[in-house]
């Protein structure tokens, strides 16, 4: 009788410990309502920041072992909100995102490394409009109300991905440099 109780207790303890450890290295659930992905760019030297209304992020983060973390972000290319329905429609066309053929822009991390307190160095591949390019950017991690808050800014050159073709290649109209800002709130 005593032995089975001991076995039971040990099993329960072992299960509890496994669950605790597993919980620390789990895939986080993104709070999309509190998160945002935006593109900051210059149009004839005028700074503009617009949000992508639809995106999803799958982050597998282990605060104790950041090197084992993984992140994937999918952005709906037809969801960029330029503040005007006519412009929003234009940007989905072939010369820009070609959303009909390439509905998603995807970032998949290949390495995440600790880079100081609350900082991560992220490297991965960004695929937009059928073109993939390696990117790296810094990410800060903080916690708020029991959730992780990831903030990062990924600078890209839009012409790398053929965003803005033909007459829109002119970088005095829309600058080549675009900053993709992430603010992702995720918890368990």
């Amino acid at each position, binding site marked *: 009788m005593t032995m089975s109780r001991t076995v039971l207790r040990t099993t329960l303890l072992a299960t509890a410990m496994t669950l605790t450890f597993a919980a620390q290295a789990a895939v986080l659930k993104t709070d999309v309502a509190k998160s945002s992905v935006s593109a900051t760019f210059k149009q*004839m030297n005028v700074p503009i920041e*617009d949000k992508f209304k639809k995106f999803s992020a799958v982050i597998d983060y282990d605060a104790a072992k950041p090197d084992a973390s993984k992140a994937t972000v999918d952005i709906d290319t037809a969801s960029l909100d330029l503040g005007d329905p006519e412009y929003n429609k234009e940007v989905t066309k072939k010369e820009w995102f070609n959303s009909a053929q390439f509905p998603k822009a995807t970032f998949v991390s290949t390495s995440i490394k600790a880079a100081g307190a609350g900082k991560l160095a992220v490297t991965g591949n960004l695929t937009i409009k059928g073109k993939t390019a390696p990117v790296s950017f810094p990410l800060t991690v903080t916690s708020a109300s029991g959730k992780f808050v990831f903030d990062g800014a990924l600078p890209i050159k839009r012409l790398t991905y053929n965003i803005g073709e033909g007459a829109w290649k002119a970088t005095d109209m829309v600058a080549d440099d675009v900053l993709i800002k992430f603010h992702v709130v995720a918890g368990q």
Partner: protein
Amino acid sequence: MQRYTKTAMSLHWLTALLIVGAFIMGLVMTSIPGFSPAKLRYFSWHKWLGVTVFALAVLRVVWRQFHRPPPHPAHIPAWQNRTADAVHMLLYFLIFAVPVSGYLYTLSAGVPVVYLGVWPMPVIMAPDPELKPVFRAVHYWLDMAMAALVFAHAGAALKHHFIDRDTVLKRMLPF
């Protein structure tokens, strides 16, 4: 005959030219369908013209404080003088109100103005999708009111010159 000062004349005609230019550009640019580099260029130039008109309006008001306009020519009925004064005051109001309404419109749309592509102008309000259509309408109707008053103003000047054959228009011309 007492004329306006050369400065007042220059400011007047320069403002008139820029306003006509900005107005035509405003009509043309908003009638271009879709989204093209040319359209974006016209929008920017239109805003630069507007900022310039506003700056000139400030200069004009300051100048006018220190150099009162010549008195109304003699022999003009009082009601015409009163009407002229009222229209001029309204035009002064509009050369401020129109560019300001345009400025607020573009800011509410989240597009700040970088004057001449080099000077970022103060962002005095955050983007506001609710206010955007309001400012758009205000800017449009103030523009239409100004166009009507400009026609009345220019028409009256020509009437005085060619029909009444008096010195009203001559006062604003350096020759």
